[in-house]
């Protein structure tokens, strides 16, 4: 059977106030309203959420994994961005 299908949506759930929305999976829905309701029924059956975001999957742009080295390696060498890079003399606190 072939016919046009409902678009795929990615679902993001905030599990409680104070936390980020986190990607949990995807589902099919004809429109955004339906996507939110379906997400509620599929991904929060056990009170896993207080807020839902949905976005059509084809609207997401992702970095290219083959460029991961070029994108992310340069940060590895910048150890001076981390507080552990620095010596703090004994006796100094609150720093």
């Amino acid at each position, binding site marked *: *059977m072939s*016919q*046009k*299908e*409902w678009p*795929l949506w990615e679902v993001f759930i905030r599990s409680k106030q104070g936390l980020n929305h986190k990607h949990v*999976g*995807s*589902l*099919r829905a*004809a*429109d955004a309203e*339906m996507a939110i309701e379906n997400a509620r029924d*599929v991904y929060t*059956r*056990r009170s896993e959420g207080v807020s839902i975001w949905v976005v059509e999957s084809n609207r997401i742009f*992702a970095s*290219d*994994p*083959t*460029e991961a080295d070029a994108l992310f390696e340069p940060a590895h060498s910048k150890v001076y961005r981390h507080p552990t890079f620095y010596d703090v003399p004994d006796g100094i606190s609150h720093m």
Partner: protein
Amino acid sequence: MKEINLTELEAAFQSKLDREIRIEPNDWMPADYRKTLIRQISQHAHSEIVGMLPEGNWITRAPNLRRKAVLLAKVQDEAGHGLYLYSAVETLGADREETIDDLHSGKAKYSSIFNYPTVSWADMGAIGWLVDGAAIMNQVPLCRCSYGPYARAMVRVCKEESFHQRQGFEIISKLALGTPEQKEMAQDALNRWWWPALMMFGPNDADSPHTQQSMNWKIKRSTNDELRQLFIDVTVPQAELIGLTIPDPDLKWNQETGHYEIGTINWDEFWAVVSGNGPCNRERVAARKKAKEDGMWVREAALAHAEKRKARQAS
């Protein structure tokens, strides 16, 4: 984009597997790895969805309000689990509805256990206890599967599924400890579901062509026989505890190995059911096809309405 040859890609892929680094959707992966995953995950998803039918058969006949709500919630969870899994399949570039069409045409398989009929209320107990018990054994190692989306779906499924087995055991033990009619009903269910449950782990390792490759790829973490033995070892004492008899005259405890030994599994029956000749294969697939066909006008309507709305907003 820089030029990378196939050998290098394969080496990088293997190195990730060796270091227990998960493979994610956009990463390069061998075509066979992708194919194996699509096959396995979609069959797993189909099993969840077809698996709704034998239990769904008793929703309207559940004996009290509590059991009715629990059974309904459980069967609904299976729909949810199917959806998590289809969601994982779609990350591999497969199309959910196409994999479903493969199920309907008989090309894709699903767990053979769901081709057995549910003929008494005790079957709801036996399915939760044995079938979900076996499924959990299979699924726990999959939480460490090398493919990220599959592993994550499995974590969710395993978390939710622990209630399934408990509610099943609660049903069967209530019967086993109930009136003589109820105990007979429970024993009858165990008699019918025990062997098919053991078959759920798949053929013996020697006859399982995909096992070695899947183990190398870390899709599969334990062999069929290892998992089956684990299941037998935990389930036999549970049956004893509630006074039911495992329907296997050859079952015995081996002091030396620390494992139970069982009689011979009827593999002819297993292959017959897998190839479409189980008691309910036709009914199960027919029910799923009907749902899809009957729902077509609904899905089309929703899409047509969404498009109308978009057009109205645009103008």
